[in-house]
C-alpha cells in the first residue's frame, strides 16, 4: 500500500477531476474577472485576490466542456514560486477533500503530461491533473494554439 495522499476533488462541467492538495494555495468564491485584450480564449482574465493578481484559467473553453448550473463555482488558486505568477483555475464545484492511497499510473497510450495519475475510489476513477505540467510554458503554448495533439509536440521538443 502506498502512502495516503490528499487531493481536492472538483468538477469541470459534469466531470470529476482532482489535484494534489499540496499544490493548492487556497480556494475562493468567484470574484470579478477583468478580461485581457489579446489573451487566448482559455484565459478568462485576471482577478485581484487580496493584494495580488491572479490569472484565471478556464479549461472548459479549451476542452469544450459545456457549463453547468449544478454546484457552486469556485476559483482554485495554485502555489507558485513567484508571487507575480499566480494561477487560478475556474472550476464548477469543489466537491471534497479526497484521501487515497489507491493510485494508478496513467496508461502510456494517453500520456500527455497534463494528467499525472488516476485515483481509484469505490465506484469511480478520478484523473489527477498535473498542475506543474499544466501551467508549464510548453503546455500553456499548446493551450493557446488550436492544436489538439499535445503529446507529439512535447515529444518533438524533447528530441
Amino acid at each position, binding site marked *: 500500500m502506498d502512502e495516503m495522499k*490528499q487531493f481536492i476533488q472538483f468538477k469541470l462541467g459534469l466531470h470529476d477531476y482532482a489535484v494534489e*492538495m499540496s499544490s*493548492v494555495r487556497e480556494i475562493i468564491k468567484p470574484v470579478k474577472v477583468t478580461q485581457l485584450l489579446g489573451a487566448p480564449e482559455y484565459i478568462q482574465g485576471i482577478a485581484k485576490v487580496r493584494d495580488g493578481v491572479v490569472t484565471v484559467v478556464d479549461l472548459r473553453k479549451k476542452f469544450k466542456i459545456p457549463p453547468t448550473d449544478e454546484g457552486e463555482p469556485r476559483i482554485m488558486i495554485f502555489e507558485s514560486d513567484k508571487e507575480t505568477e499566480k494561477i487560478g483555475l475556474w472550476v464548477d464545484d469543489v466537491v471534497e477533500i479526497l484521501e487515497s492511497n489507491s493510485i494508478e499510473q496513467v496508461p502510456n497510450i494517453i500520456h500527455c503530461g497534463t494528467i499525472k495519475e488516476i485515483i481509484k475510489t469505490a465506484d469511480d476513477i478520478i484523473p489527477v491533473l498535473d498542475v506543474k505540467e499544466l501551467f508549464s510554458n510548453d503546455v500553456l503554448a499548446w493551450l493557446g494554439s488550436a492544436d489538439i495533439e499535445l503529446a507529439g509536440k512535447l515529444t518533438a521538443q524533447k528530441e
Partner: protein
Amino acid sequence: MIEDYVQMVDVIFDTDNAKTSTFLFDLEKYIYIRMGSVIKLPLKDGDLIPATTTSFECLKTGEKVLRHVGAEALGIAYTGVAYPIRENGVIIGGIATTGSTERESALERLPSLSKNLSESLQQVAAAVENIAASAQSLADGGQALTLQSQEVNDKALIMEEVVEYINSVASDTKVLGLNASIEAARAGDVGRGFAVVASEIRTMAISSATSAKDIRKIIGGIQGLVGKMTEELEKVGGNTQEVSAAVEEIGATIETLAESALELAALADKI
C-alpha cells in the same frame, strides 16, 4: 196538481248549472228529484219524505224553511230551503233545494287566508334577506381568506430569502473549511489537530446546506398548497356570487308575490 210544477224543478236546477239539488214533493213523497253535483242525498223519485228534512218541516209548518248545515254533516257546508206550494190556499206539496254554500264560506275565509299569505311572504322575505346577508359575508370571508393566503405566500418568499442566506453562509463555511484543511496540511504534523477541526467545519457546512435544501423543498410545498387554496377559494367565490345573484332574484320575486298578496287581501275585503 203538484205535477204542474215539475218544470219549475228543471228551471231551478238548470239555473245553477246543475249544482243545486232540487226536489218536488207532494204531501208524503218526492215526485221529482234532480240531484245536483255538489250535494248528493240518498233520495230518489217516489221516496217518502224523511222526517229530518226541510221538506218535512215545511209540510208540517206550512212555512218556508231555511236550514244552514255545516260541513260536519256531509263534508261540505250547504243550505237547504223548502217552500210549500198551495192551491186555493191548501198545501198540496212543496219545492226544496239543497245548495252548496262552499263559495260563501270560502269567501269568508279569503281575507284571513290572504292575510296569512301576506304575513308568510313577509317572513320569507326576511329569511331571504338573511340569506343574502350571509352570502355577502361568505363572499367577504372568502376575499379575506384570499388576501391571507397571499400573505402566507409572501411570508414563504421571505422565508426563502432567509434560507438563501443560510445557504450562502453554509457555502462560505465550506470554502473556509477547505482552506483550513489546506492550511493544516501545509503545517504538516503540527497542523494535524487543526485538520480535524477543519474537517468538522466542512461536515457542518454540508449538513447546513442539506438542511437548507430540505427547507426550500418544504417552502415550495407550502407555496404549492397556498396556490391550490387560492384556486379553490376563487371557485368558492364564484359559487357564492352565483348564490348571491340567485337569492337576489328570489327576493325580487317574493316582493312581487307580496304585492300580489296585498292586492288579494284588498280584493277579498271588497267582496
